[in-house]
């Protein structure tokens, strides 16, 4: 299925997706949208792992397992982050990062 598609195409897609995620992380102020940007970043890393595995090391499965582990960690991170966000909302009535400054000096 990948005849005629060089590895560079996959790397370009994942690089652009990574930097779009970083842009979102820098400009968003809502905690949930920042979490979504982090998901974009993790997803782009997964594309890299899978493409490298397929093109450069087709006789191994390392990229496959790394992607599985990254997906599991993303799930754990999303669960804990959303628990924290809901707790913050309960205490501050807002999930804007600029309004949550109780622990700042």
């Amino acid at each position, binding site marked *: *299925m*990948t*005849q*005629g598609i060089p*590895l*560079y195409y*996959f*790397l*370009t*897609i994942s*690089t*652009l*997706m990574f*930097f*779009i995620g*970083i*842009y*979102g992380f*820098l*400009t*968003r*102020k*809502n905690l*949930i*949208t920042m*979490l*979504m*940007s982090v*998901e*974009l970043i993790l*997803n782009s890393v*997964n594309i890299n792992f*899978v493409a490298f595995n*397929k*093109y*450069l090391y*087709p*006789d*191994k*499965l390392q990229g*496959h*397992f790394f*992607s*599985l582990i990254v*997906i*599991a*960690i*993303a*799930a*754990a*991170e999303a*669960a*804990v982050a*959303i*628990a924290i*966000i*809901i*707790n913050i*909302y309960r205490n501050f009535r807002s999930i*804007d990062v600029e309004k949550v400054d109780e622990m700042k000096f």
Partner: protein
Amino acid sequence: MNSKVMFFVFAGIILIFSVMTVVSRRILRSAVYLLFVLLATAGLYFMLNFNFLAAVQLTVYAGGIVVLIIFSILLTSHISERAPMAGARRSLFSALAVIIGAILTLTTIFRFTFVPSSEPAIGSDIKTIGTKLISYGEGGYALPFEVISVLLLAAMIGAIIVARKETK
């Protein structure tokens, strides 16, 4: 030719919807755009013949994480609420940093010559994956598997403890 068209369709979906995820002012909509990005990524995995990984991507990411995010959006903000965007200065400098970083990374990638391997491909069917995942010999992944199970348990307990209402 056909697979090339498919690749460009998936790539276009990924790029357009990830930009829209990041710039959309309605949070619920950006969650749905994120869902489209994750589905197109699963499509790329199917193209690369990683069927199990694509299935995991569909169930865990698209089925689990996006639903979790949508639930938390519904719990914490009004549906018609529009997220405030960052100021012009902040957006400008973020865009500048991101564009410079992307150009730097892409030039580095394109100047490097990757040497494709000519080894015969190992099958990525479920039987091979399952055997490798619990074997502790050469190329086995028993230890990461156990670590990830403990991590998931810890994350689950931690999330319950953190989000629980305190009753006294």
